[in-house]
């Protein structure tokens, strides 16, 4: 028998061999009777189920992050602190964000409210809490409200964030850190629940050995997709190996030549390293899910999922990223564009997994552009996604990488269009030529997200937009960035 251990309501909770298919939301509501956390959509769109996870970073600093409990599996809590709405304020002592919500009339029917409070609480403890409405609206993009029109919530948030980091959780920080240290696990966690096993190794060697021994296991990273398989697909996942505790897989490092991102590092950790070198990708990454999804989801998960509309593969293909794949004791390094073989098919062999992603540092001779086309700005799945990189020397394109998602069964480069650009100056006429050539590269499908014609035309227009964004004569800000008030 094994116990998972996590910090909840000031105490270390121990649960013997929990059902690994049970979500934290259901555990809170049904097992614990803590019904403050709500289910609004059960698929990570509405944020009513938001809770906060506390964990220690590499420097043993305590970090708080908002996540969707409706797609979070219970054993993932092992070693972490769980903060749900019941824990944030007490009847006699509302949390500052709750006080501000009362003052601003930030709650009406109250159903989305616990989720907003949890999101605001995490923002309250962020390294750099939002100081303006636009930034805060971005932090709350994963929370839907139908009553208030958001303005009172934003007002409340901004008022409370002025005193950020001065609550009882901050006062207890040292204690919380020592409690979390006390439940740190030395080796692999393995639980068994009626034939369902869950393993959370800590080292890449252990992960590799485990996965090689049971190649049919489901690798769980952020769980933003797998959580839905369980809750919506009603699939029973009997063997789960969680990658989120593997130190080598969660590290993000930058050296002179490359940015190396552990496959299980959540977007929240991975993206800053990428956007520091490639600020052109900032908007795309800020629209990848919402905060709650980016706090769980990982680059490795997005790549391994091999969806044709995943947002990160076109970016990484354009950036000439490599993947390091690991199987047992063996590692091999491949170009990411060779990873995808067919619709949801990859080169991964049984027991093999993505260990890390290696992205070459910015080349100042290159032009970069990354675009995500969706029906709405926040929290939407791409109809078309584009990642572009051109090397321009002496006013001539010497290398071109034009990668698209949503245009074929896999994320894919437009080689014909790329060839059209080589040797050409980079200008509007070349962009038009390349755009036309994309017609030979792709035969997109029609589905409910977009028609084939729309996809073809908008992919072509993304190239034209890329020219406009990189046109040195143009003084305007990048077209992809929208003005907010």
């Amino acid at each position, binding site marked *: 028998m094994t116990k998972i251990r996590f910090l909840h309501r000031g105490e270390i909770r121990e649960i013997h061999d929990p059902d690994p298919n049970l979500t934290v939301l259901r555990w809170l509501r049904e097992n614990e009777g803590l019904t403050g956390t709500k289910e609004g959509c059960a698929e990570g769109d509405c944020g009513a189920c938001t809770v906060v996870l506390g964990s220690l970073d590499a420097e043993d600093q305590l970090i708080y992050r908002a996540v969707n409990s409706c797609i979070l599996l219970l054993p993932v809590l092992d070693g972490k602190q769980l903060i749900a709405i019941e824990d944030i304020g007490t009847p006699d002592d509302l949390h500052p964000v709750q006080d501000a919500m009362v003052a601003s009339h930030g709650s009406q029917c109250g159903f989305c409210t616990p989720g907003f409070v949890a999101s605001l609480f995490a923002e309250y403890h962020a390294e750099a809490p939002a100081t303006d409405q636009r930034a805060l*609206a971005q932090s709350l993009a994963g929370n839907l409200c139908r009553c208030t029109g958001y303005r009172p919530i934003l007002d409340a948030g901004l008022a409370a964030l002025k005193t950020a980091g001065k609550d009882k959780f901050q006062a207890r920080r040292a204690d919380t850190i020592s409690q979390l240290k006390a439940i740190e696990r030395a080796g692999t966690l393995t639980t068994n629940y009626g034939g369902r096993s869950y393993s959370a190794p800590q080292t890449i060697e252990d992960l590799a050995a485990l996965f090689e021994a049971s190649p049919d296991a489901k690798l769980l990273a952020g769980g933003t997709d797998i959580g839905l398989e369980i809750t919506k697909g009603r699939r029973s996942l009997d063997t789960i190996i969680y990658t989120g505790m593997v130190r080598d897989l969660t590290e993000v490092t930058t050296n002179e030549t490359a940015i190396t991102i552990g496959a299980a590092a959540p977007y929240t950790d991975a993206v800053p390293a990428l956007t520091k070198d490639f600020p052109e990708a900032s908007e795309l990454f800020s629209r990848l899910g919402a905060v709650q999804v980016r706090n769980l989801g990982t680059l490795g998960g997005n790549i391994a999922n091999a969806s044709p509309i995943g947002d990160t593969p076109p970016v990484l293909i354009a950036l000439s990223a490599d993947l390091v794949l690991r199987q047992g004791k063996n590692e091999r390094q491949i170009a990411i564009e060779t990873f995808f073989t067919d619709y949801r098919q990859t080169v991964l062999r049984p027991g093999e997994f993505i260990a890390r992603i290696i992205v070459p540092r910015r080349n100042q001779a290159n032009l970069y552009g990354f675009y995500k086309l969706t029906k709405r700005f926040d929290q939407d799945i791409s109809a078309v996604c584009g990642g572009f990189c051109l090397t321009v020397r002496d006013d001539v394109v010497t290398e071109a990488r034009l990668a698209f998602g949503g245009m074929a069964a896999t994320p894919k480069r437009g080689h014909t269009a790329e060839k059209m650009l080589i040797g050409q100056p980079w200008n509007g006429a070349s962009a038009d030529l390349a755009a036309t050539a994309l017609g030979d590269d792709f035969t997109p499908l029609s589905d409910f997200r977009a028609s084939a014609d729309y996809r073809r035309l908008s992919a072509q227009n993304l190239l034209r937009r890329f020219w406009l964004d990189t046109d040195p004569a143009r003084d305007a800000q990048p077209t992809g960035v929208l003005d907010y008030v």
Partner: protein
Amino acid sequence: MGIVSVGQSVPRHEDPRLLRGEGRYTADIALDRQVYGYTVRSPHAHARITGIDRTAAAAAPGVLTVLIGADYAADGLGEIPVMLSPAPGFDKDAAIIPPRLALATDKVRMVGDGVAFIVAETLNQAKNAADLLEIEYQLLDAVTDTGASAQPGASLVWEGQTDNRAFTYSLGDPQATQAAFASADKIVSARIEMQRLAVASLEGRTAIANFDQATGKVTFYVPVQGAFATRVGVAKGIFDMDPEDVRIITGDIGGSFGLKSFTPEMALTLWAAKRLGRPVKWVNERQDSLLSDHQGRGKISQAELALDANGKFLGLRVTTTASLGAYFSQMGMMHTTLSTSGLVGVYDIATAYVTINGYFSNAAPTGPYRGAGRPDASYVIERLIDIAAAETGIDRLELRRRNLIPASAMPYKTALGPTYDSGDFAKNMETALTGIDAAEFESRRAAAAEKGKLLGLGIANNIENAGAPGMEFADISFDQNGVATLAAGTTDHGQGHATLYSQIMSERLGIDPEEIVVREGDTDLLADGRGTGGSRVSAMGSGAVMAAVDVTIVNATKIAAHQLETAEADISFDAGLFQVRGTDRTLSLREVVTASFLPDGVPQGMEPGLSGEGIYKGSAANFPNGCHAVEVEIDRETGRAALTRYVASHDVGRVLNPLLVNGQVTGGIAQSVGQALLEAVVYDPSDGQLLSGSFLDYCMPRASDFCHIDVIDNPTPTSANPLGAKGVGEVGAACAVPAVVNAVMDALSPFGVTHLDTPLTSAKLWRAMQ
């Protein structure tokens, strides 16, 4: 907290509880021995059910019962109630009201139509059993589109009819209107479509039914806007029971906006609980909500305005095709007909004639959604005026000014029936224009153009009926500790009734709000109640509380007189103190309460304790009104429309609590911004499948979609109710749709575009600019 009064910005009492996650919504309840119901829904928009084999499903693990429509009919249970009091002069007998049982029997008529109800020990067991249920369908042609359903030759939703029309309702004077149009110098016309919308309250529809086997009584936990109407529906509509044996408890309600009324799943939950002798819990999950909840709007109006050479409005003629969906929702056709009179708006229009045709289609039922016809009406007239301005060359503000009903004309009887008692519409408009700095708009437009942006200014007026006629109920009772409990017949789904009612009681009785407990949504609390809807609480709910306060004071005066050994007539009451006139002999309310529980504390014939039952009857509607001014910026390259300035000037009569009023107005605006720019329920016209089936695909606004919304009060007094308040729940929503659309159309005016139907998505605007 101290004594508070009406008009103060009192923060909400209910907030700390809700902010701590202590709200108690129906899905939060877990009863002993409860089991879970799951509705198996039709995957087809229109099909004949040719066979159902439930053998495998019934044998699946944990399954307790698999119920189908034939069982419901065999058990002799009633049809889902439909209210048929939609509007003055509506001919019920000429309308086609198809029967709706809780499950489809012979045919399914929409995607999401209930076909079976499976109850199991766990929800997943019920869902797994649903996969094993074999249902054979013979597919039929389907029509989901509002316009297409009204076309001759459209496939029929209900057999035996010649077309899909359910009713025709007319209002106004056809001859006079025809004459006005004949004499007009100018007639403008437009086809204006309002798309279907998902209500999408964050809490979905939910129910838990628990029959007491010994007594036969049922406790039904269900979030509904009308607890007492639901009780009647359960007792007399579905079963044949004594209403006293039915207790409805709504608990906290996570938003409703018109949605939460009597629906088939409620009957299923009750029926299954009765059959099984165990509590049955049913929670509509999000995808099922988007499929099966009633939807808002869904109307196409052909509207014409007749003007003379000076731009004076002479007459208005509107013919509307209203989509009903496959069935009537509980409120029947009310949402398509009731607020039709708002079409003449705040304008002096001598004559008008309106015809509404309701049509069935193979789509989810439509029903009330924030405004329930009010936004539809103001949208038509305010769009039409902007189109008239463009066609006549008269400035749109000037055109409005020439036709506004002046404040001096009050009371003003409109061509479509209602008599406005008060309002200063010119002041509303000038306030909004000043607030948005309309004078400097053209220079802002020019500055935006230099950045490649198109700036547009939109303005729209609105007036609507709210409150009365009707009744409402409230009871006050004190306990021995002096705590006053108010039981109200209204229900709260976010409006903040507890705060408002406490303000009234605190001011009138001189007691601290912390010594007041407000309870709603429980039929065991008081004799009757009419619920919440149609912006009625500020007038009717408050009126009932005022009445209960009055009765309480009368009763307390009797006790005080008894205690002070004087005649009631000699006692005055002020600020919580009873005083024998002209003396210094006093008793506080608290002392009266204490005395009321003592032996001989009350006069002979009175029950011990202090209480007061209030019944309020209101006959005169009130007319909240307003003017919104909106600035929208459109990106020429992407077509995205972003709000940049928003000023809402409104007249809700006496402002009872500015914080709550502001919240209602702003929230209503936000929903309508969603309608104007983003949201649409979309069915695939080829097969009737719902394409907007998740929050991923149904695009509700998020925090980043708004600019600051400036709400300015411009009250004019009304005598329609004791507090002088007007309705506030819908006025923001009603004004925002035309204001935002007018702003977008103003921005697009360089392209010669006069009208686009909502939602004005980036793609639609981009296309319009090419």
